[in-house]
């Protein structure tokens, strides 16, 4: 059973990586685009295991750093920063409530994009600290939350029955 869960999770992760690197850039609205990596990370943190998400975010950031043309490491650092925020939220709040999930998705994606924008402005002088950069981060976080509102139920429907079946409960 555990293998089936892992296989499905890995398959879901591969689908998300493929969609994020190939389809999502075409769904950009005035430069802002949803971030499917965070949709997956929030699902993973709230439904599977919140302890691993910083490591997974680090790997996803590295994958994105390899496919983008930004200064190497910015994506990794910003994803890790967002995952740390998510980690802090997932430990403290009720992980079953849907609004908590969406609020966490917004908070961690905005934190990640804001951290990335700050790093970008610090490292690369071609990017001045313009309000566009930060307003785009805010728009992208909103867009990600909207995408999460649509995709999270799909993840739940596809993966949750397996996850629930694999959990072991202590009754006494």
């Amino acid at each position: 059973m555990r293998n089936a869960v892992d296989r499905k999770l890995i398959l879901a992760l591969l689908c998300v990586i493929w969609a994020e690197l190939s389809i999502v850039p075409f769904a950009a609205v005035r430069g802002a685009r949803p971030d499917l990596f965070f949709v997956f990370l929030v699902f993973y943190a709230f439904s599977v295991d919140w302890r691993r998400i910083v490591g997974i975010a680090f790997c996803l950031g590295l994958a994105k750093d390899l496919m983008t043309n930004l200064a190497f490491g910015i994506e990794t650092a910003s994803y890790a920063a967002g995952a740390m925020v998510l980690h802090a939220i997932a430990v403290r709040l009720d992980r079953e409530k849907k609004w908590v999930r969406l609020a966490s998705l917004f908070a961690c994606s905005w934190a990640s994009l804001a951290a990335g924008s700050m790093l970008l402005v610090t490292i690369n002088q071609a990017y001045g600290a313009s309000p566009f950069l930060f307003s785009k981060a805010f728009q992208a976080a909103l867009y990600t939350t909207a995408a999460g509102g649509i995709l999270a139920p799909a993840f739940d429907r596809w993966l949750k029955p397996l996850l629930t079946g694999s959990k072991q409960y202590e009754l006494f």
Partner: protein
Amino acid sequence: MRIRVRWKGPLFLTGAVFLPLVIGAVTPQIVDRARLFAVELASPLFKLQDRTLLFIKEKAAYFLDIPRLKRENASLRLAVDALKREGVEMEELRQEKRRLEKLLNLKNMSAPAGVAARVIARDSSPWVQYVVIDKGVRDGIRENTALLSNGGLVGKVVSASRSASRAILLIDSESRVSVLDQRTRDVGLVEGSEAQILKMTYLDRNAKIEVGDMVVSSGLGGVYPKGLPVGKIQMVGEEEPGGEFKYAIVAPFAVFSQLEEVLCVMQSTEN
């Protein structure tokens, strides 16, 4: 009493987060090679996806267009007859041109060599404006190959692998193109910005540019051929009140959000 401070975990995490940044800063060549390898590795998947989407789009358009195509077919048949007659006249004129060129000892001025390419992927980062095209070194694409679309200048290739290349778009913040106002011949520099508009800078204070003027590439720098349309001036202003330079906002001709095909111009006509 000793206070135990947990420092190993956060220290390890901070090191891990900043390690890629350090690697990127210290060994940019290795990072660039790794990225080219990643593009080369992913390009078959991107190409397959692009072909599938194109196939679906074409088939859908074909079935939706059948009634209109039938009407158009009838009128095109008439047009073809007229063009055949024109073709014969054109051939006559071409031969006449050749004879006159020989007579005047003129060089054959050919257009720069170009290769058509498809945009198979866009940069997944929200901060940069790059694309991946489906042509690489194998097709003659090199670094600094200029890219054009129907509307005009689009950008240039920054790195090419065997079968795919990465290109920076004009609207990226790191993009710079030397341009001139077609009417007044005032030279400036077009820069991209986060707002996805083009800003023409380093314009002389006495420049007579006006809203609506066409901006074309100047050919200075040898990367972009001279005379490629870039955009139209939308607004003119001063960098500082009473300062040395003016600036202009340029609306690009190319529609960057709908970029599907580009023409890669192999060499600069200026050179």
